[in-house]
């Protein structure tokens, strides 16, 4: 068997979508993976599915909005893995938002998952990698973080904030030999996007996960659009002047 690209990995937000696919692919290539997610039943199903895979799966139920539990959960899984080489923050929430909806409670709950949880887990992982002087840190952002769209004011803001945080970590940890990679997926068919009417250039989660692991392995990318063609789309979208952008349905 080919040796795995990463010996020990931790995926937060592992019960469905891109996170679950990452766990599957990592475990199948022999990586020991800790799968962290809120729903124990989903984790159990994933662990059961991967029972015969070469890499062991270590499941830990945890709600990323429970920030106080993060240090203990982080220590528990890293101890269980016997170290850490790859960290992925894939937890994300994108509730449907009506055009004239301004629901603060709902928006803050989304920020707690997309940004608050990322910072809580990211700080624990960054400190560990800093002290270890090695590691790969992957954050799943979004093309939604590139522009303030009508449809998703707070989802976009949470991803933009997360990507800013990741860039800072990248610059901070570079001298410690730690790599921080921002992934900006386009439209991926996952439970999170199931409520959207139409998906533009959609890809399946397994392809997204494959591309993410490919980008995480090399040293080429700091920010990687998945699939890559979204880079070109994003260039165009980012260059549309504001007075025109507001007239579009993007």
């Amino acid at each position, binding site marked *: 068997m080919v040796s795995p690209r990463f010996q020990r990995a931790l995926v937060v937000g592992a019960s469905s979508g891109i996170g679950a696919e990452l766990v599957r692919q990592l475990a199948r290539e022999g990586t020991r993976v800790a799968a962290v997610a809120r729903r124990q039943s989903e984790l159990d199903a994933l662990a059961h599915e991967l029972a015969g895979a070469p890499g062991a799966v270590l499941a830990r139920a945890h709600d990323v909005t429970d920030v106080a539990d993060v240090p203990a959960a*982080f220590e528990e899984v*890293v101890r269980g893995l016997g170290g850490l080489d790859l960290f992925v923050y894939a937890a994300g929430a994108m509730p449907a938002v009506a055009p004239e909806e301004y629901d603060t409670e709902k928006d803050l709950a989304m920020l707690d998952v997309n940004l608050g949880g990322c910072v809580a887990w990211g700080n*624990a992982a960054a400190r*560990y990698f800093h002290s270890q*002087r090695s590691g790969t840190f992957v954050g799943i952002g979004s093309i939604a973080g590139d522009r303030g769209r009508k449809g998703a004011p707070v989802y976009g803001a949470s991803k933009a904030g997360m990507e800013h945080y990741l860039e800072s970590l990248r610059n901070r940890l570079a001298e410690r030999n730690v790599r921080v990679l921002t992934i900006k997926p386009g439209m991926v068919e996952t439970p999170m996007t199931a409520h959207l009417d139409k998906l533009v250039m959609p890809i399946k989660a397994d392809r997204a996960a494959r591309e993410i692991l490919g980008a995480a392995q090399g040293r080429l990318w700091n920010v990687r659009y998945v699939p890559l063609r979204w880079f070109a789309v994003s260039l165009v979208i980012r260059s549309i002047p504001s007075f025109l952008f507001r007239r579009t349905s993007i």
Partner: protein
Amino acid sequence: MAAAGLNPGGAERRVSAREARPRTGYEYIEGWGMAVGAPARVLRPRSVDEVAAGFAHARRDGVPLTLRGTGCSYGDASVNRAGHVLDVSGMDQILSFDRATGVADCEAGVTLSKLWRHTLPRGHWPMVVSGTMFPTLAGAAGMNIHGKNNFKVGTIGDAILEVDVVLPNGELVTLDRARRPDLFHAVIGGFGMLGAITRVKLKTKRIYSGEVDVKGVSSANLAEMMAYMDAHTADADYLVGWLDCFAGGAAQGRGLVHHARYLDEGEDLNAERTLQVGYQELPLSILGFPKGEVWRMLRLFNHDLGMGFVNWTKHQMGKLEERKGFHRQSHAAFNFLLDYVPNWKFAYGRGGGRGLIQYQVFVPKESAHAALSEVLRRSRERGHTSYLGVLKRHRPDPFLLTHALDGWSLALDFKVTPERRASLWATTDELTQIVLAAGGRFYFAKDAVIGPATARAMYPEGALDRFLALKREVDPDGLLQSDLWRRVFGGDPSRFTAE
């Protein structure tokens, strides 16, 4: 003593030490030389109460606790693969300094750097400093560190007047030469196995200039170097020899002695200026390169051929330096050679079992020349030539597990790689036999290799048993342990080198 929570969760926040770090965290903790390390939960107390709370925390979790400062010990002295780590570097306040007597009263985590920056403008310099300014005073006391003036003033323990120690049962005691002198002399040099030092009161030296008078003296071989140093123990305040460990035959042990002395009152007409902290700063660039990046260049030379060339060049430069005669250098520039190139250790690699160990041997003066010559020859012969060799003269002191003796030490930096590790350990095993046969000792601030049989053999009659009896008295259930403790005092008692 009331044990407050280590993480009270209050709004109070403070950024301290060299980097802001979380109060507790799961981190990879390694020795300075990077060759040994393990992940551990790190607790960072900010008060004596929190130190005791940290002890209780480890007890509650049923795991041993290791004490750590800034992690300057080369080996596994502050590494704990079996439990938690208590890092006192956040307790870093200088409580008082008396300009008239030069006595400084400091919290455990005050570094030598912080201490000299405080005392220098007030006309004092620490009695003893290491080659780097970053150790904490608690770490320095726990290891009983020495400087280039060990032959003259002894170890840092000799300058310490009083320490506060939190014992494993949570009790806070103040120790000095009158109150529990047995414990005082064991805690200093006790490598954190008897209690956590939380306060250190020590005397500093009155100085009349921010500079020392320094002269480089090139030596053609070890005998010549030792003869020079022996001849000048009376008129020098500092003596340190650098060795080109690549040189063999008649040139074995060639190198450069630095001989320095303090300036007397009135000798430095610019004392007002040189006694300022700003005057002491080390250069920001080296040969025009920003010094933070210089290790990348050193990495290009980090192999036998490259370091052979670097050592040869340094020896030739030493001959030129000798022609300069006495010249002046700031205290910081003279003492803290290891801080010139930040992160120079990265030249040895940055992880994956790469790094360095420092193997420092202490040998009585009678057998020193023969033993050190053999150590140099044997390490070269085994293909593990030290990339840096440093020779110092020492004197005995009254501390129970002291490394210092009336003799010499040779510190050797050996490169560690996963491929060469086994052969390096086998080589140090041979060297250890040579040193023990010569009546020598080792030093826990540096050590990464010795085993139980070496510890048993190296101390004067009864010293180790007295130490172990004290350990049983104050820490009956073995709360305080480190990887070093388990390596040197556990395991196979017949082994001179631990795996």
